[in-house]
């Protein structure tokens, strides 16, 4: 199920500003890759290019190549809608669909994609809710509105919702920025569980989090990829001076 991704000379422009500058990034399969860097360094812009969330946004231009496995994601055969079923995303703020129940939030997309038959919906629902450790908390109120959950639960619901589509890669854009420490801890534990089956890319401004959950880390500064590699190596023995300055807290 898990797939690798890599970018070649990837640039993202917001109007005339170049937010991501010629980035070559390797994302290993069935592992967690963390993207760190000071705010405004382009890490979210990079992440959102990976499932073409910039498409159709006025003023944003993406240049360069991005591969999912062996396939270039801007190729004719790959439209953004199809791509996003393979490369899912979890956002900074929990964003369950407000007008839907917990159950509908999870089953809506698989049903639209024709991935699941009517009778199997409940199985899928239970499976992804168990994966995100929500099942026991919500199994008696699946028809309640998603907004009735706490924000930590909502974020796990958003993860379950993304998993229900069966993606090979899951992109997470500062998924714990809006959560309290307990809820953060639960999400991190989940990430650790999930990486057996799925490739995960997580953007975070929190270096401790990157060190805790990721196998590989990429350090971005001013749109450039300064350094990337094994997390442990990068944090203990950075090759670049700039990286060392950032992780020891001298800037950013």
């Amino acid at each position: 199920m898990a797939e690798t991704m890599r970018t070649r000379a990837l640039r993202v422009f917001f109007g005339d500003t170049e937010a991501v500058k010629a980035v070559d990034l390797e994302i290993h399969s069935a592992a967690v890759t963390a993207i760190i860097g000071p705010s405004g360094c382009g890490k979210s812009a990079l992440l959102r290019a990976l499932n073409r969330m910039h498409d159709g946004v006025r003023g944003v231009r993406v240049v360069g190549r991005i591969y999912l496995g062996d396939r270039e994601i801007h190729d004719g055969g790959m439209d953004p809608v199809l791509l996003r079923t393979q490369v899912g995303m979890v956002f900074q703020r929990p964003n369950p669909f407000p007008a839907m129940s917990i159950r509908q939030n999870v089953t809506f997309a698989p049903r639209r994609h024709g991935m699941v038959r009517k009778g199997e919906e409940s199985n899928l629902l239970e499976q992804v809710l168990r994966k995100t450790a929500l099942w026991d908390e919500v199994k008696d109120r699946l028809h309640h509105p998603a907004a009735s959950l706490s924000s930590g639960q909502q974020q796990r619901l958003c993860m379950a919702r993304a998993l229900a589509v069966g993606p090979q890669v899951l992109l997470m854009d500062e998924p714990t920025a809006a959560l309290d420490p307990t809820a953060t801890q639960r999400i991190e534990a989940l990430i650790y569980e999930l990486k057996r089956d799925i490739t995960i890319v997580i953007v975070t401004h929190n270096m401790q989090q990157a060190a805790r959950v990721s196998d590989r880390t990429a350090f971005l500064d001013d749109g450039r990829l300064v350094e990337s590699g094994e997390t442990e190596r990068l944090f203990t023995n950075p090759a670049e001076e700039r990286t060392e300055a950032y992780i020891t807290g001298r800037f950013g």
Partner: protein
Amino acid sequence: MITLCTGAFVMALLPLGWLLLEGVRVGGRHLSWDFLAAGAVLPGLGSWGSAVAGSAAVVGIAVALGVPLGVGTGVYVTEFGRGLLGRMARVVCEALAGLPSILAGIAAYGLIMTTLGRFSVPAAGAALTVILVPLVALRTMEALEAVPRDVREAALALGLGETTTVLQVVMPVALPQVVAGILLATGRIVGETAPLLVTVFVVGGGAVGPAATLPTHIYAHAVSPLPSWEGEAWAGALLLMAAVSTLHAVSALIRTRRPSPRSHRLPTGV
């Protein structure tokens, strides 16, 4: 300074309250079932009951035509109309919302009365449709724009298409606001008088328009020289105000039941 503001407040509300009071006091005295059935019958224009029916027909046509058109335009402009057509449609809607309503009446008169002959209910319905569409479209745009961006992104990130995202994810969130907006817009056309005056009410050359409506009936009674008709005009006005208030109240109920994500308040206790 607060005194001055309060003064302004009272100065404005005093006559407005007086107006409401006059409606209830004088109108209430004349309002009865009997009044609807019979009332003073204007030559050729029928009873108050027929006026209510006429209003219902005219407003019904406008709602049936205008709501789908208005909602459709609103959805198109906010969600799909990134090109010139979408931007133009928005500008036109804004301009059209400020169109003097009597002009809608004249245009409908010219377009429909002269082509379909002297049948007035469709012309009046068309005139009110012209007024309703931009109002509904603008309310729909507002409601859709109030849906947070991350709801859309969530749907797109699941690989849902744009149409599915708009119709099945965004629209259900905006729906209460859209319905509330439709009710307000309907309240506005229920009381529109001027466009009806030049479509339904035309008495040109002795031929009499076949329908009476509530607002034109009020006007006809108000400007008549018979003093006894003043009370009846107020009774009609009371009916009209009741209809508009009801629509407003229901609209407010729908809006407050699910608070809009944009609702912001200022500190008052500081």
